């Protein structure tokens, strides 16, 4: 077993274990903390695939910004064990059925998709994920969507002013 294989199995087990812990933790704050562990484990996977930029962005955006947002919401709403709403049995039943159906579709999709089976990811080499190549593609082939997304952000900023400013 090479080092990268050991790392791969360690990260996979860590990601799966903490993902399950997100679901089973009774305390929402613990769930959020476990979710951060999931993100770190997935970033580790990206590093193994030689995608450093994606790994860093994943940590900055998800573990940094979005998780802080989650924590804020949980704290503001003051969710803890006592305030967990009583769940209707039918609600749980329908949730399990629809979730199970989705899982079924995904599993059958993955199994029957010929492009996934028997194809290994490139470990350690492969330079698609490097920031140099990303930048080149972003400013040549994807220059148009890149520029147009500025309109999107501009409208969001205008919106923040319109909604947030006091009269």
């Amino acid at each position: 077993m090479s080092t990268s294989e050991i790392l791969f199995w360690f990260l996979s087990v860590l990601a799966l274990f903490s993902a399950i812990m997100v679901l089973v933790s009774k305390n929402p704050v613990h769930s959020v903390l476990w979710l951060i562990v999931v993100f770190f484990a997935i970033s580790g996977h990206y590093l193994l695939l030689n995608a450093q930029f994606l790994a860093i962005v994943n940590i900055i955006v998800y573990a940094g910004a979005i998780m802080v947002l989650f924590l804020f919401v949980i704290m503001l709403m003051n969710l803890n064990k006592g305030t967990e709403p009583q769940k209707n049995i039918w609600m749980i039943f329908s949730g399990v059925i629809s979730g199970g159906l989705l899982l079924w579709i995904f599993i059958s999709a993955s199994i029957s998709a010929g492009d996934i089976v028997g194809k290994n990811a490139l470990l350690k080499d492969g330079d698609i994920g490097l920031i140099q190549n990303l930048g080149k593609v972003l400013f040549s082939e994807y220059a148009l969507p890149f520029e147009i997304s500025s309109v999107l952000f501009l409208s969001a900023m205008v919106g923040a002013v319109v909604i947030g400013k006091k009269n």
Partner: protein
Amino acid sequence: MNAIILSAAFGVMMMLCSFLLKNKGSLRHIASIALLILLVANIADTYGHTMFLINTHGMLLFNRFGMLFNSIAIGSTFVYVLLTGKEIEKTGTYVAEYFVLIFFVLCGVTLLSSYNNLLTLFLGIEIMSIPLYILTGSDKRNMKSNEAALKYFLMGAFSTGLMLMGIALTYGGTGTFNMEAVRTFPNIYKGLASFLEILGLLFLLVSMAFKVSAAPFHFWTPDVYDGAPSVFTSFMATIVKAAGFIAFIKLCAVRMNETSGVVNWQMIYAILIVATLLVGNITAVFQQSVKRMLAYSSIAQAGFMLFSLISLNDLAYEGILLYAAAYSLATIGIFAILVKMKDISLEGYNGLAKTQPALAATNMVFLLSLSGIPLTAGFFAKYYMLAAVLKTGTYTWLVIVGVLFAAVSVYYYFRVIQAMYFKEGNPQTEVITPSFKYGVIALAALIILLGIFPNLILNWLYF
């Protein structure tokens, strides 16, 4: 390309106007002049005079159909600003910003009429939706407006999530974001498409159906249309919805069509159509508020526009353009009159023909056009939609269902006409200026003209 860049640039220009100009009354004149320039630039672009030569790397594809739709959308926005510009000023304090957002929505609309890549589809949908969330909540003191904005935002964000998931899955299945996917060996399932792609397309279908408010994904529509300030409901229910259909029809014509050997997409559309017509028409019958009735009627009209997805032939393309024009103009007219009414319930219209004969007469023309009575534009719009399906030779039963529901729709549109003409009452309206009166009369004349000569629009598709 002209329309995309200029609409964004005019948006920025209006932003500068908001602090350079102190006189708010001149803003709507600037906006209408800018819209006129935009319209001229787009027509020039249609005939090959483009100002910006940009290599889009196949992200955008400009064709006559999309260009003509751009002209219709920009023209309808122009009419909209001319008729209801004053009401936009009354909505809140940030008048210039509202125009900015309208221009940005137009940028999204023009992007959606020319996208050739799932990335640009996503950008177009988002550029179109985000300003709308804000416009919905622009009446900050009104709780209903706030509720509508939050509801719209949360539901819209959810459907965007579904769309992204769909795009990611189709990318996994085909390895490209381009509309025309090259399906090479390992990606093939049943000789046509990968299973992942089919799953992704289903997600895309759901999110697009949400954007055009087709049942069973319509639940946000009545609350949002009812809660938003009436002027912005008018914009949302017309131009934006039509643009959603243009994007939808393109997606179906390419991606769904390519995989039709694996999935019977037409059956799925048929189910969507019947559900949408049923929900829209039957619920509209029971509404007491005209605004809410129009929200349900817009769901019902979406059902008719969905017919073009089944047929996808030349009649369907002509029909969807005619439908976009007829529906947008008539709905803008109805809303222009609605915002002048003090009481927007059905009783509020009682006896309008006595006090404001011009408004009542034009409102009647708009309502007749929406219900599809001959000699109005709405008749030919519905005719083309149904004829396109008949031309394909299959799904004849769907045409019969469509005609039946069109008959149902006549009932609730005529309730408003009945209230205006045959009931006694003293409707309260705001001050009606002569220019507004001439405006709605001109719009009604245009609708009748289109109802007699639909080729006035359709010829542009070929010449």
